């Protein structure tokens, strides 16, 4: 699946959609494909303050348990309630219904986030 142009990407395979001072965050399609069938997602708590690149959750697939690293910093304002019951949503639609949490961004988004084109380069050379 193509990486949408309107998102920013981290080297840890997370995406962020910045709208005003809110960022919606998830993992990329490349990430879900590498992980395989996802069976459990542990998200940060609403109200939790998170720093860019900090480990703030866990994705467990049939292959492995991987950490979630936030591409942005700020306060978590919402989590995707669907993922507790249906973690497979991340496999089905990583950029859509499989979104993970929303952050009220404080400060600038991390300067090392990549454009869709640069992220594409990263995963094709990986």
């Amino acid at each position: 699946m193509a990486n949408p142009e309107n998102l920013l990407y981290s080297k840890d395979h997370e995406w962020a959609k910045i709208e005003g001072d809110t960022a919606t965050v998830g993992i990329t399609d490349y990430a879900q494909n590498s992980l395989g069938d996802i069976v459990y997602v542990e998200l940060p708590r609403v109200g939790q303050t998170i720093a860019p690149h900090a480990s703030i959750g866990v994705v467990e697939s049939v292959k492995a348990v991987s950490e979630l690293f936030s591409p942005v910093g700020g306060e978590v304002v919402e989590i995707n309630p669907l993922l507790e019951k249906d973690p497979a949503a991340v496999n089905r639609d990583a950029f859509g219904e499989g979104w993970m949490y929303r952050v009220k961004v404080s400060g600038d988004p991390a300067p090392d986030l990549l454009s869709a084109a640069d992220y594409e380069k990263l995963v094709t050379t990986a």
Partner: protein
Amino acid sequence: MSAPDAADVVRGRFEPGATEPLIFELGHPGRANTYFPNARALEEFLPAQTLRPDLPLPDNSELDVIRHYTRLSQRNFSIDTGFYPLGSCTMKYNPRVNDAMANLPGFRDLHPFAPDELAQGALALMYDLERYLAAIFGMAQFSLNPAAGAHAELAALLIAKAYFAKKGEGAARTTVIVPDTAHGTNPASAAMVGYKVVSLQSDARGRVGVDAIKAVLGPDTAVCMMTNPNTLGLFEDHILEIARAVHAAGGLMYYDGANANALMGNARPGDMGFDLMHLNTHKTFSIPHGGGGAGHGPVGVAAHLVDFLPTPVVRKTGDRYALDFDRPESIGPMRSFWSNFAHAVRGFTYILANGGDGLTKVSQLAVLNANYVRVKVREFLDTPYDEICRHEFVASAQELKRETGVRALDLAKALLDHGFHAPTMYFPLLVPECLMIEPTETESKETLDAFVAALRSIVEQAKRDPQAVLAAPTTTVVGRVDETRAAREPDLRWKAPA
């Protein structure tokens, strides 16, 4: 679930591909053997508040129980029935002499509360085993107390914590460095003890770089956890410089013994600069394991950490042995009594049966076998770090997956149809679609050739007819299981039919 008809259950067991019923489904009220028909009812001796009106235990005759579990055991895959190349797990043959020694009545029937003077033989064995391990791995002293590998990691990190607390650096030293080529349990053990884990990426050669480690070292560094050879099967050739750098920063070096089968008689963690280490007697020294069976995880330390070892230790005075509990700086016991003592007997037997020369050869043959399989496997699968390996190597099905949709998981499943257990999959995480293959020293060339031929034929079949590989295994008692559903909707216990 409705109760299956008992006759159907019994008949069903004899049909091809039948699923063994649960022990609960086999029983019948009143069928259990009663060995004490004239004994007074147990209830008479128990306080009323401990009694419960019902206890839904299965009600089976002894013969049904024996048949049930024997049948299940026949369906298991084990090292006694087939080749088991599970990387980093060292599934080697378990010589029967080890069990024979562990079954000697003097060892087997010894009560754990036996006073020292009645347990001199057992204490002497523990004392000598400890001395042997210290000599083989170059450490000042071992404790045989921890009951498994990860348990010993925990012990080692508690020792590190006690050491830094004594130096007054307990609050400052908060991080543990774990390279991505370390053993999989290391980050979890560090987190258990309250350390912050700093992951370190290995370099293009699959090793820890000296500059990379220097970049993450600091006054907060407590421990650097490594295994050597690492989980790619490669020897960390800058280990002396790495150890010097960690020591210069005031940190400790920890050696994970998962891969010790490559070392015996050839290299010693103590000489590489490691301050702490553990061993898996059940891997390196051939004790049956897997499936969660009992383990044995001695933890070893350099001279400056001896006082912190778990209690008790066996002390020798003249020709008498005694358990010493009076060690004020010890982290205390990790496990009750003498830990898994029968495993100490097995490991001790293995060491004596092989001798120093034999153990040296064990490690050399383990390395030779791994390299033999590696150069055959690279003819049809990528081997990303393609150089002389130690006791194990990694292959990747990434290219095959792109080409055919057949993943490492599917290759592993298909191997079962050929009578082989799967290698370790998807570890280490830095190799995509990873297969980690450890043949061990006990396999013949014929077995290794048969394994390579099976893997080759599966890869060829994947290119011809990927669907067939995706459907494997088809010849096993239980076919392809739905692992995703099992993880998403776990059904872990029997429930009485309503």
